[in-house]
């Protein structure tokens, strides 16, 4: 039945295209016979083959004595039914399969090109190999400038390079520098002596992953061990049980800068002697990379750059072949002139510019779920927590308080004014300090029925205590 319908359609088409059915020439025949071959290249190849066949036959007929026209007609007739031929050829030269294969090839090439473009920078060095030249070293004078974003020039195995591969990341050193405040006062209590504050060091590593990777900042934490030129080694406070930040430890904070990029800031405090270099060991499983931040024997005294011998530094360091060598900044920033002649010790009080009570409603279901996930035992929790928040200002900082704000925060005590009971637990936010004041923000659990508190600070040198009393919601004052 279907065959009959097909034949009917074919006849109708023949009636509709009478000129195509005359087959006066090979061209008109081949046009019909090859119409089911979709790819032009393939169609042309088959056409050439059939034409060769047709011409052979034409020559044979002419050799047998037929006229050219008769030979043509007979040769075309011998070619057969063009519709039937078209159907048979179409079946053999399956267009869809061929088109699909060709499309797949094109896609593979495009994909390969896209991958090459995405990863060329990562896996191939498109930049010419070169070493750090003298002009760049001379420009190092700008590294310490506050306006310069990058304070580091890096190189890898003798090649100018910014980063090193580490697992799914490209790690680079964004900034590295020392900051050592040297404070000289003429305070009677300190005997006009120089009070050297602890040396701080901050190094910022940048972890950049492939665009489609979504990593958690925890991934890049806890994989770093640090050693310096003096033989000291440092460990993250995250890994320490007591979580004390001090000698032999560093505080690491990792934040997401871009969807696939993290900045990990390492703070080293109370370092004492400034090392010439620090090695950052990135460790994860058996793979490891070493980044050496070379601070060199040079120092900045304010903005003056002392003579440096950077090429020698580089050559010396290269013998140890770190995976990435960076040049950091060792800078001494002196506050001497700012505080010289300051007189302190007259007992200026602490100030409490504001205080408030805040209420936290706890989502117990979420907390219980969190506990279960972390394997903690369940315990009774109130539905809501009441917190006291306040700001504590040391108004004559740093004149009278020549200590690091973090140390000052540790010496703060909070006492319930009504009962005299100390508050055992308080949370201090990162202090902010200015040229003439230092501000701490404290939070603690409100004691039931207590609306008045006292903040105490005891000077570690003189033992003198300073106090401020405040009632919630009101400004505090010295008692």
């Amino acid at each position: 039945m279907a065959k009959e319908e097909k034949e009917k359609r074919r006849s109708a088409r023949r009636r509709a295209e009478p000129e195509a059915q005359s087959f006066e020439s090979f061209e008109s025949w081949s046009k019909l016979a090859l119409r089911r071959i979709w790819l032009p290249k393939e169609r042309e190849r088959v056409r050439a083959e059939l034409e060769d066949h047709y011409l052979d036959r034409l020559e044979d007929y002419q050799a047998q004595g037929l006229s050219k026209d008769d030979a043509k007609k007979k040769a075309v007739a011998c070619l057969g039914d063009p519709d039937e031929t078209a159907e048979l050829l179409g079946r053999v030269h399956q267009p869809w399969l061929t088109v699909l294969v060709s499309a797949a090839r094109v896609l593979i090439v495009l994909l390969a090109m896209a991958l090459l473009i995405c990863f060329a920078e990562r896996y191939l060095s498109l930049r010419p190999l070169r070493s750090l030249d003298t002009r760049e070293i001379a420009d190092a004078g700008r590294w310490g400038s506050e306006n310069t974003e990058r304070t580091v020039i890096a190189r890898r195995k003798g090649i100018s390079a910014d980063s090193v591969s580490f697992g799914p990341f490209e790690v680079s050193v964004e900034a590295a520098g020392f900051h050592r405040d040297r404070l000289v006062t003429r305070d009677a209590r300190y005997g006009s002596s120089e009070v050297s504050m602890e040396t701080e060091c901050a190094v910022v590593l940048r972890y950049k992953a492939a665009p489609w990777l979504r990593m958690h900042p925890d991934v890049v934490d806890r994989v770093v061990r640090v050693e310096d030129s003096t033989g000291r080694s440092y460990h993250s406070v995250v890994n320490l049980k007591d979580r004390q930040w001090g000698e032999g430890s560093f505080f690491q904070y990792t934040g997401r800068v871009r969807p696939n990029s993290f900045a990990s800031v390492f703070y080293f405090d109370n370092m004492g002697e400034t090392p010439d270099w620090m090695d950052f060991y990135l460790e994860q499983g058996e793979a490891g990379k070493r980044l050496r931040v070379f601070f060199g024997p040079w120092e900045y005294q304010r903005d003056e750059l002392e003579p440096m011998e950077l090429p020698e530094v580089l050559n010396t360091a290269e013998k140890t072949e770190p995976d990435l060598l960076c040049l950091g900044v060792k800078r001494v920033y002196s506050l001497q002139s700012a505080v010289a002649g300051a007189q302190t010790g007259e007992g200026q009080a602490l100030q409490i510019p504001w205080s408030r009570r805040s209420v936290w409603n706890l989502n117990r279901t979420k907390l219980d779920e969190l506990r279960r996930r972390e394997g903690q035992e369940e315990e009774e929790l109130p539905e809501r927590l009441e917190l006291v928040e306040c700001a504590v200002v040391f108004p004559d900082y740093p004149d009278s308080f020549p200590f690091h704000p973090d140390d000052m925060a540790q010496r703060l005590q909070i006492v319930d004014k009504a009962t005299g009971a100390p508050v055992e637990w308080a949370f201090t936010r990162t202090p902010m300090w200015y040229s003439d004041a230092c501000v701490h923000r404290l939070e603690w659990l409100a004691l039931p029925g207590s609306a008045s508190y006292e903040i105490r600070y005891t000077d570690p040198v003189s033992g003198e205590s300073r106090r401020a009393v405040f009632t919630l919601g009101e400004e505090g004052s010295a008692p």
Partner: protein
Amino acid sequence: MKIDKSLLSGSTGLLVLSLLKSGDKYGYEMITLLEAISNEVFQMKEGTLYPVLHNLEKQGFVNAYNRENEKGRSRRYYHLTDKGARQLAEQREQWEAFSGAVNSVLRRALEA
């Protein structure tokens, strides 16, 4: 004598493969040779031959290559591959069994 197309259709592949057993050939050569050998019983049209040839090529039974003829025209030759030779042997065996059975049936029917 005219042969019913349906009798020929199942055996064109076998005929083409057997023609190539004696050496590489091009399409027109195959058609004329087939006519000559079969005393013009098999008059294969181009529209029948070339789809069969292309199908055999696709299956790997024959290879095709171009060579210029004496008049400078490019001509497409077909070559029987090892796989094609094995296929030919197999089809030939089947054909002999089939034709023997048909002959046997016809003989008995005529004798009856």
